[in-house]
């Protein structure tokens, strides 16, 4: 089928590339069908393009490749909704926001991973309740200094009255 997109022109896609999002995604609740488009030369980055709205496409990445120690506990009811039977058929992705003039300030939405059942091509963006993550984690800051390595070095030196736990506050603004 032919799909009109704002960024990539008219694309010919196979019906079996379409991923059904029965509830849409927050902010785009009416868009139920998406498909993934690879980004040439960057295997870890893809677009998630809406079938029924040419302008809506999100850049998505594999959070486990960019954030060491990222974990997302898929709630049972979501796994049930997506009919995920084994973890191997679940694909976890996160949307990335790239400021047009400053790619270094790109952020990933770790509190709301997009979970896809690859077997049934069914997806859902899950908002994790009670997680330490927020909607905006700096992508490159965390690549340069993964949690647990030298980024905390300076603060965790036994230097006078610095409270030791200041070093552990990474960028988790949120939780629920």
């Amino acid at each position: 089928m032919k799909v009109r997109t704002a960024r990539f022109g008219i694309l010919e896609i196979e019906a079996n590339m379409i991923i059904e999002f029965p509830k849409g995604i927050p902010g785009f609740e009416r868009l139920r069908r998406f498909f993934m488009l690879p980004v040439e030369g960057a295997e870890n980055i893809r677009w998630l393009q809406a079938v029924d709205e040419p302008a809506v496409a999100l850049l998505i990445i594999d959070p486990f490749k960019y954030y060491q120690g990222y974990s997302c506990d898929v709630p049972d009811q979501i796994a049930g909704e997506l009919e995920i039977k084994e973890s191997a058929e679940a694909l976890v992705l996160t949307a990335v926001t790239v400021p047009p003039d400053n790619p270094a300030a790109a952020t990933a939405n770790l509190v709301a991973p997009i979970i896809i059942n690859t077997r049934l091509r069914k997806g859902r963006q899950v908002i994790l309740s009670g997680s330490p993550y927020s909607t905006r984690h700096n992508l490159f800051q965390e690549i340069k200094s993964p949690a647990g390595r030298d980024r905390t070095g300076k603060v965790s030196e036994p230097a006078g009255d610095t409270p030791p736990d200041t070093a552990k506050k990474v960028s988790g603004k949120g939780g629920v």
Partner: protein
Amino acid sequence: MLVLTRKRNQGIMLGDRIKITVLEVKDDTVKIGIDAPGDVTILRSELYQAVREENATAAAGDGNAAELLKDFLAGQGEKR
């Protein structure tokens, strides 16, 4: 919007499975207890709103976003 006035320890039923109870009222803060089945998602509304807004911002990026990101990643790789 339906508006109900409740006192401390009084509650509201939403359907027959969800019960909301006012546990404490202090200054401008209200502590609320929620009894709901496990399949009901409970979120602070500002988090849901933040995700909506972030999706809208992310989707507003143009086609160059991928190129910008890719080039920047390549640069990062060289530096490491």
